[in-house]
């Protein structure tokens, strides 16, 4: 328990539920650190989550208002919620690689296209780990997992020269960053920029799952060994897109648009 968790997390959830060596907890704390540095009050943040390790384990941890969406649809929910919230309220979503990049991609891309004022934090544990370890679109190519006993062979978005973040960039996201959980201050700094963006931000924080990915793909549960491998895993990190302010934020633009409409007296 740290000062941050006491300040921001609900008592009964403050301890966290992730496995030994998991990067979920440190990544989660980095989001709290960014909020703390920005000095945003609890009242001004609504925290949503998806499904999977990242969603389930961060749901209802935030002391303030919080919600969990159905798998992959939280971006559509945030789009509606954005219309109802005051502009100064921030929406932060902690989701997984499966939630954001596969089951929810349609909604994620449209959320980026609309430049909805929301910060999507993708806590990427390199696969579907809450169901016991199956490959996802970000699992390193060739990895043995429970659903790829002979190693993955399909091209995915973590190798083959393909990068999902390019797709999200083309969809119109105004801030995109990728970091590993080991990048300390740089992660917090990107999260600060993301949260300050009035429009759509996505920050991907990558960490290895020790319990499943470590055991299945790397053949070890030894935490230092898993992280030694992870340090040499090639990932393009840093800020990949910063066009904050280049496009109007969705709900703000919507209100401006509505102001142009001549108000009839058609209601009773």
């Amino acid at each position, binding site marked *: 328990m740290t000062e941050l968790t006491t300040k921001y997390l*609900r008592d*009964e*959830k403050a301890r966290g539920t992730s496995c030994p060596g998991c990067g979920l907890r440190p990544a989660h704390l980095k989001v709290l650190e960014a909020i703390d540095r920005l000095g945003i009050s*609890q*009242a001004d943040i*609504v925290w949503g*989550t998806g499904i999977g390790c990242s969603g*389930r384990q961060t*749901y*209802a941890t935030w*002391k*303030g*208002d*919080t*919600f*969990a*969406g*159905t798998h992959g*649809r939280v971006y*559509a*929910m*945030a*789009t*509606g*919620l*954005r*219309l*109802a*919230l*005051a502009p100064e*309220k921030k929406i932060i979503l902690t989701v997984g690689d499966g939630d954001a990049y596969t089951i929810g991609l*349609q*909604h994620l891309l*449209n959320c980026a296209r609309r430049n909805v004022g929301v910060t999507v934090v993708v806590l990427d544990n390199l696969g579907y780990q809450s169901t016991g370890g199956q490959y996802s679109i970000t699992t390193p190519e060739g990895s043995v997992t429970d659903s790829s006993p002979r190693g993955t062979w399909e091209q995915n978005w973590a190798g083959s020269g393909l990068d999902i973040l390019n797709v999200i960039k083309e969809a119109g996201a105004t801030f995109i960053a990728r970091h590993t959980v080991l990048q300390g201050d740089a992660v917090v700094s990107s999260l600060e920029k993301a949260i300050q963006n009035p429009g759509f931000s996505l920050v991907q924080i990558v960490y290895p799952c020790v319990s499943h990915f470590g055991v299945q793909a790397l053949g070890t549960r030894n935490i230092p060994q898993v992280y030694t491998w992870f340090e040499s895993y090639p990932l393009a990190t840093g800020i990949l897109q910063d066009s904050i302010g280049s496009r109007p934020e969705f709900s703000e633009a*919507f209100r401006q*648009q*509505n102001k142009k*409409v*001549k*108000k*009839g007296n*058609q*209601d*009773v």
Partner: protein
Amino acid sequence: MRRIFDTGNAAICEGAIFAGCRVFAGYPITPATEIAENMARRLPEEDGFYLQAEDEIAALHICNGASLGGLKAMTATSGPGYILFADAFGWALSSEIPVVIINSQRVGPVSGITGAPGQGEFYLSRYLAHGGNYETIVLAPASVQEAFLLTVRAFYLSERFRTPVTILADQMVTDGWETLELPESEEEAQNMDLQRWERKVHPGPDFYPPTDAIDIPPVVLGHNTGGACSDWTPTLQGHDTEDFELHHKHAWRLIHKILSHRELIDDAEEWEVEDAEIILVAYGTPSRVVKSAVQEGRAKGLRIGGIRLISLWPFQDRLFKRKASYLVVELNWDGQLVKEVQRAARGSAVHFWGRCGELPSVKELLATAEQIKEGKTLSRDAWKTERW
């Protein structure tokens, strides 16, 4: 009173706006497209938001999100889009977030025939969410005017029960043109028995109390109440839990908040049922033919009556306790409402008259009633089986 000539689709929009709906997200689909088009025109005039969603999955999730932030929201679709609502419907139902869903039924299964009426989603409207452990409210208009009235009621009930309310219409109700009367003052609204319920914010911390009480405000985010809301089984505070007893409390609330306050939901019209030997049963557009058949049948000396269901779910078993022969008239070939009537009318003979895409005629219904009276087996051609 403003009197206009318009469609059921337009009536639904006016009902929604009267009830305070400020967000509509949808995806165009025949025969509900004009609801989206009307809302696109009308909502900005009321400082509301019309969104064309990327699909129906997003449409209802956007509405859920808006409602979660305190805005009343509605979406509309037909069969192929309705099935995509399943995910978000379950979320709103379990999280207890008010939202209104319109389904204008066309001919199925699946894409079927687009521009003709069907009644194939009677059971789906009851069981759209997976996992069971709930009751739900479904209303069925039979005219343009009633489409307006029931949309207002749907919003009212969705707020008081904090649950999604479904309007199960059909293509003829939504596409059909009729005279529509709209109130122009509070007095006129009261005379029309229109009720509205303002959104309130639950102050916390026990957002999910183990009670069958209604009028408990839903979780509304953005007020720093510590609102916690998800489709996981909730603790009293809305945290996720795997505890069976807490789950039982949750399911109990979802079921009994509806069943304990049925007087606010149950609605039906009965014609000449007191001494009837044969009672025709229908909802939606076919019920209008049933009404005419009862009038003409009585004129011919038949002891015939009719029941029109206005609320479909929870099902009104009490309406079928009279000893009589029931003839259930539906716009489908498989017979859905008839199964529920059979269950409710135990001890009475229950027959089925089905067709899809077009309405029965009064003549056909009366001829069938005569056959029942004479104790004949009901069947026309082999492929038009209606033996029950």
